[in-house]
């Protein structure tokens, strides 16, 4: 909005010539800067102003028969009272409207609606675009009007019903604006959803616990770890498990499992002891190797004692590391559960933020209608010039001598 300020000011200054009213910087809802229009097909160079390079707006002819936009030539004459093309002297009196043929040709150029980026797909001849925006364009913000409501809505969204009044959500009894109701339904805690498995409705708040126990959800047989391939809906699982031979054998499997692991541990222990008693030269173990040269016969008793002690420690270590692994597993599970909970919370937050964003958007739209301030572009300009001056100063300081400084003042126009 503020970015088009300089151009629009110039525009209104010119158009005010005819109406002789002075209301600069006061954009009406139908205010439109014709300079920002986009043309459907690239305009012919002969119809483009040599100054702004866009199709003529309100074309003016000079006495030397060159054509410019009325704004452009007026601006150019402020700097130099010559024709920008051939530099022949001209004054305001030397200007006359261009032939009506040229005016008609540029007025008939087809342009996109200025609201194209908001969604309007209309293309109209340029001289009709103001009417389109004022009267028919569906993407223009207009007052809601229902029951004196002053809120702004897109013209194609106006209806007999005011979308801004507060209504009560029939599911959770919260108060929501009519236009936000659809979004609210997405997150409303009172509303019900279909369970994907059993297709019955559940309140969103109850839904999670239901999914954990839904009779229609497919689950694997509890003995799937022992090899049962069956996957059935939960309600049928009990029947299957009462007949499943894997389930019947599960206690046996369990017992065998623990026995096997005990035996494996014992076996490992025995093997180590065996290795100590009959050290194998081909398979060296650091401890036995270091003992060997001392003569096992002398230190036999002592060595045996130390080695058995070591064996005990090793067994302890094994046990400890096993419980470590179990602990770690438990922690991982805990983390995963926690994570899921946080994720769910984030989704809820995000939807809430979206709701706020909608309202923000709407508020901004409303503010956009308020009178705009020309401050921003001016500030930006100041920074530019400052930059340019800094460059120039940096340049002069690196140079000395009177002659140079004199030249500097002579050629100030060129300095950067």
């Amino acid at each position, binding site marked *: 909005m503020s*970015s*088009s*300020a*300089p*151009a629009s000011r110039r525009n209104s200054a010119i158009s005010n010539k005819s109406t002789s009213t002075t209301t600069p910087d006061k954009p009406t809802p139908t205010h439109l800067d014709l*300079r*920002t229009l986009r043309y459907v097909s690239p305009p012919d160079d002969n119809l483009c102003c*040599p*100054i*702004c*390079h*866009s199709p003529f707006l309100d074309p003016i002819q000079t006495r030397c028969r060159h054509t410019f936009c009325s704004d*452009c030539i007026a*601006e*150019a004459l*402020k*700097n*130099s009272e*010559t024709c*920008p*093309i051939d*530099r022949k002297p001209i004054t305001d009196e030397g200007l006359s409207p261009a032939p009506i043929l040229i005016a008609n040709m540029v007025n008939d150029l087809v342009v996109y609606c200025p609201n194209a980026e908001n969604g309007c797909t209309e293309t109209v001849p340029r001289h009709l675009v103001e009417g389109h925006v004022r009267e028919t364009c569906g993407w223009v913000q207009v007052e809601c009007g229902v029951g004196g409501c002053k809120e702004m809505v897109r013209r194609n969204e106006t209806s007999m019903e005011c979308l801004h009044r507060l209504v009560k959500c029939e599911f959770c009894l919260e108060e929501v604006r009519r236009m936000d109701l659809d979004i609210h339904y997405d997150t409303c805690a009172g509303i019900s959803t279909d369970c994907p498995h059993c297709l019955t409705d559940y309140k969103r708040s109850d839904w999670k616990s239901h999914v954990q126990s839904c009779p229609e959800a497919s689950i694997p047989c509890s003995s799937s770890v022992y090899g049962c391939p069956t996957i059935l809906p939960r309600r049928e699982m009990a029947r299957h498990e009462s007949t499943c031979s894997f389930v019947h054998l599960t206690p046996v499997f369990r017992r065998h499992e623990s026995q096997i692991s005990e035996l494996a541990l014992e076996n490992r222990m025995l093997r180590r002891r065996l290795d100590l008693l009959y050290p194998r030269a081909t398979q060296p173990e650091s401890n036995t190797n270091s003992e060997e040269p001392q003569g096992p016969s002398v230190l036999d008793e002592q060595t045996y004692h130390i080695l058995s002690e070591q064996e005990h420690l090793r067994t302890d270590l094994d046990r400890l590391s096993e419980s470590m692994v179990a602990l770690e597993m438990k922690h991982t599970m805990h983390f995963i559960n926690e994570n899921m909970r946080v994720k769910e919370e984030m989704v809820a937050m995000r939807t809430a933020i979206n709701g706020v964003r909608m309202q923000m958007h709407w508020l901004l739209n409303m503010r956009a209608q308020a009178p705009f301030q020309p401050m921003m*572009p001016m500030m*930006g*300009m100041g920074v*530019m*010039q400052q930059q*340019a001056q800094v460059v120039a100063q940096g*340049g*002069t300081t690196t*140079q000395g001598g009177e*002659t*140079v400084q004199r*030249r500097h003042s002579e*050629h100030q*126009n*060129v*300095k*950067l």
Partner: protein
Amino acid sequence: MSLPKRILKETERLRNEKDTGIKATIHGDNLRYFDVEINGPEGSPYEGGVFELELFLPEDYPMSPPKVRFLTKIYHPNIDRLGRICLDILKNNWSPALQIRTVLLSIQALLGAPNPDDPLANDVAQKWKEDENAAKATARQWTKEYAKKVSDQKEEA
């Protein structure tokens, strides 16, 4: 700040500019500031060199001329030690019908036809008038020393 459509159009046209030995690209995200490269014209002491310039479009462009300055050191009677250029269209003779492209072509032409009678660098102009051949030799040497080579530029591309 609004950027007039004209500047966008000129930028677009400059991007497609080829075979004239001038090149202007937007510097960073400031759409009014350009990095310029001009090839020394053939048959001049500046032939074979690529000269870097900076170009800035003031707020009221095209009503006032762009500000242009040589960044590459150059030995020329109309260009001073700071790279400032003495060219009428950049000052009093500016016309809003001129464009970045025409300005750069004029600067290129100025390299081909120095004008020591309207000097900006007095000492250079003096040399130019006294002994044109020696001055041109210096210009040629400076070109070799300070300007990028045309071939380097092609490699970059």
